[in-house]
């Protein structure tokens, strides 16, 4: 049965009761047995009608398109939190105001009984800056960019390394950040791969809640970036509809790309990693193999994962000049790429294979990697991205699975321990690997939540 509209006086009393109930619930664990339900703050007080009059934006309807006014959807939420000094008391004050206006909906102000979240960083991408002796990591869990000393090697007794700088906050516009690149000036290029659909560029010394110096809008579902410093260009992969878009490095706003590599001849299917070999004038593009034409029903199909190679100045629907593909490659949901500029060796974060694989500059067809870093000594756990430090002859790896980054000698091969590890969570701690959990299902047989990224 529906509750009658109440007076403001009654509602005010009701809110006080709710305030007590909510505060109590925040300290008291609810029994888990369904046969012994917990106290119910609404039913216990009789007739609450707490109706919100403050309309809040909703940012979670599918993969939201980026706001056209240049604002950040997530940043707006963060601003709301920081600006209001968000607290339970603030919420209750809002509720008092709402209750005085009455209404027909029964609002329940009970806090969640459980929340699953990862308190630690989830490192999606990495870039090393040997000129400044810095390692930059993308935390796609908390939307931050962390900058560490390159020589940091977190001792086992330390819970988490302390970064030199952290770029974090609503002004940064960071959302689902990935695909790092660093240019010769030390500027940081950060791919925002969902709600923001942009590449954000930060000053080399950026720190704290600072706005990016540029925001380049890209198509939806961008993944990784790569720089060609000779020509002053930035390459960005778009997962689907799959393509590579090439812009001037200093492009800004809605600047159009200089070139787009796209079409059936390209054999790019669900694009991920990208690297450019300026010396040999080629680019490498990683594909997971998921394929369809969105305008034509029933065209879906799958291909084995591949790395396709194109001339650096390719444009339009061009066929690859080489293709690395087949079971010997061990490619399995590969992530970011990086090139060693002298040898042309291609380093690949082979995520689900928990390995870093290296292909030679001339590799073609169903070839095994020339080197593979893999095994229990490596500390690798879902290595999502790699970055070659040619100056110091090292390769860095971001581990999405354990909140760490690992450095190996450039020629490392097999089950070898890293020479240094930057760790942002207790040793041995495994990440939840959340990445925009947009939906959930309940498995009633196993009493489990099924959460897709």
């Amino acid at each position, binding site marked *: 049965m529906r509750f009658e509209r109440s007076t403001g006086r009654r509602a005010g009393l009701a809110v006080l009761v709710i305030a007590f109930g909510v505060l109590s619930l925040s300290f008291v664990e609810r029994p888990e047995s369904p046969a012994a339900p917990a106290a119910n703050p609404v039913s216990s007080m009789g007739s609450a009608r707490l109706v919100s009059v403050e309309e809040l934006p909703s940012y979670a309807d*599918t993969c939201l398109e980026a706001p056209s006014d240049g604002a950040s959807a997530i940043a707006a*939420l963060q601003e709301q939190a920081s600006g209001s000094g968000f607290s339970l008391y603030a919420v209750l004050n809002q509720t008092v105001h709402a209750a005085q206006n009455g209404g027909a909906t029964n*609002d329940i102000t009970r*806090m969640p009984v*459980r929340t699953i979240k990862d308190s630690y960083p989830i490192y999606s991408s990495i870039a090393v800056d040997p000129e400044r002796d810095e390692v930059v990591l993308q935390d796609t869990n908390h939307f931050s960019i962390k900058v560490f000393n390159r020589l940091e090697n977190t001792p086992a007794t330390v819970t988490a390394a302390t970064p030199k700088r952290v770029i974090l906050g609503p002004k940064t516009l960071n959302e689902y950040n990935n695909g790092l690149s660093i240019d010769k000036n030390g500027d940081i290029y950060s791919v925002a791969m969902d709600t923001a659909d942009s590449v954000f560029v930060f000053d080399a010394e950026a720190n704290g809640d600072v706005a990016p110096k540029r925001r380049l809008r890209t198509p939806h579902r961008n993944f990784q970036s790569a720089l060609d410093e000779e020509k002053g260009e930035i390459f960005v992969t778009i997962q689907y509809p799959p393509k590579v878009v090439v812009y001037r490095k200093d492009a800004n706003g809605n600047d159009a790309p200089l070139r787009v590599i796209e079409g059936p001849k390209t054999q790019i299917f669900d694009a991920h990693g990208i690297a450019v070999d300026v010396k040999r004038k080629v680019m490498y593009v990683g594909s997971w193999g998921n394929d369809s034409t969105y305008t034509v029903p029933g065209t879906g199909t799958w291909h084995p994962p591949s790395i396709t190679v194109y001339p650096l100045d390719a444009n339009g629907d061009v066929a690859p000049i080489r293709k690395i593909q087949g079971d010997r490659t061990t490619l399995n949901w590969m992530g970011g790429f990086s090139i060693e500029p002298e040898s042309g060796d291609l380093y690949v974060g082979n995520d*689900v294979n928990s390995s870093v694989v290296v292909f030679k500059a001339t590799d073609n067809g169903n070839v095994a990697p020339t080197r593979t870093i893999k095994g229990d000594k490596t500390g690798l756990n879902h290595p999502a991205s790699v970055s070659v430090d040619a100056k110091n002859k090292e390769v860095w790896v971001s581990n999405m699975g354990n909140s760490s980054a690992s450095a190996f000698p450039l020629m490392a091969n097999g089950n070898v321990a890293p020479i240094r590890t930057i760790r942002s969570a207790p040793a041995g701690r495994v990440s939840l690997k959340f990445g925009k*959990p947009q939906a959930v299902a*309940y498995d009633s047989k196993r009493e489990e939540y099924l959460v897709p990224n």
Partner: protein
Amino acid sequence: MNTPIIAAFARLAKEDTLPVRIIEGQKTLISRTMHNLSYNAVNDEIVVSSPFNQAILTFRAGSSGEAAPIRYIRGPKTQILGTDYDGNDKAFVDGDNGEILIPVGTNTSPYESILVFDRLANGDVAPKRVLSGPDTLIKGTRAGHAGIAIDPKRDLMVVKSAGGGPLLVFNRTASGNAKPLKAIQGPKSGIGVGGGGGGGGQIGVTPSGMIVTACAGGAICAWSVTDTGDVPARWRIPVQQLTNVAPSGVALNPFHKEIIVPSGARNVVQTYYWPEVFDDAASTTNNNNN
């Protein structure tokens, strides 16, 4: 999203509790942009769309690691279609009636279709039923497709339009250009034209007949399956006001009288104890504004 895994967590998992298993890897045929997945308790299976390859995948529910789907629906006969932005992002399973339901739309049309397949369909098969046309009032957008839930007790299908469309109730087996039995939308409702209603396309129907889904203002709302018109929700949890977390979807746990709310925007999954929507006898009372 960086990697489109499916992680399974124990119901009592809290902050930093690790998943008990993860489905991931090339052999899974999963791709990014899974905005719904569905558990079939009758057959102990999971159904999920694979958006980039216009496929619907069925896994054994206990799958772990690089598990291949046990069946997939894919090919020209299927009519599966999407948009460049969020195409084919949702799939739903009705275990009681042995059917899989998929919303499909295009970049150009404001209307969506519901394709219905047999649960055991495998490969390139035509849908057994299609609900499609302007009279259905099912709307979608380039960046969002309809959500679906089945009420097996009352033999109803509930559809949540995307992009400012209404919340609709149909006979479960409605097909063609069928009109809905009920349509909830408007400013009072927090759904549809003038009402908003973001928060993703997931819907649940409680055994007592309450439709639970996200509504305007970052809240989760509940209406009776008998409600229609511009009617306010009977119950609401103002999730965003309470926790500063905007819901992306919702799933129901009737046994424990809980709802589960993921937030893509904040990388969290919350659980609310909400006995009111599971116990509410109001579902049979009239609350219609039409």
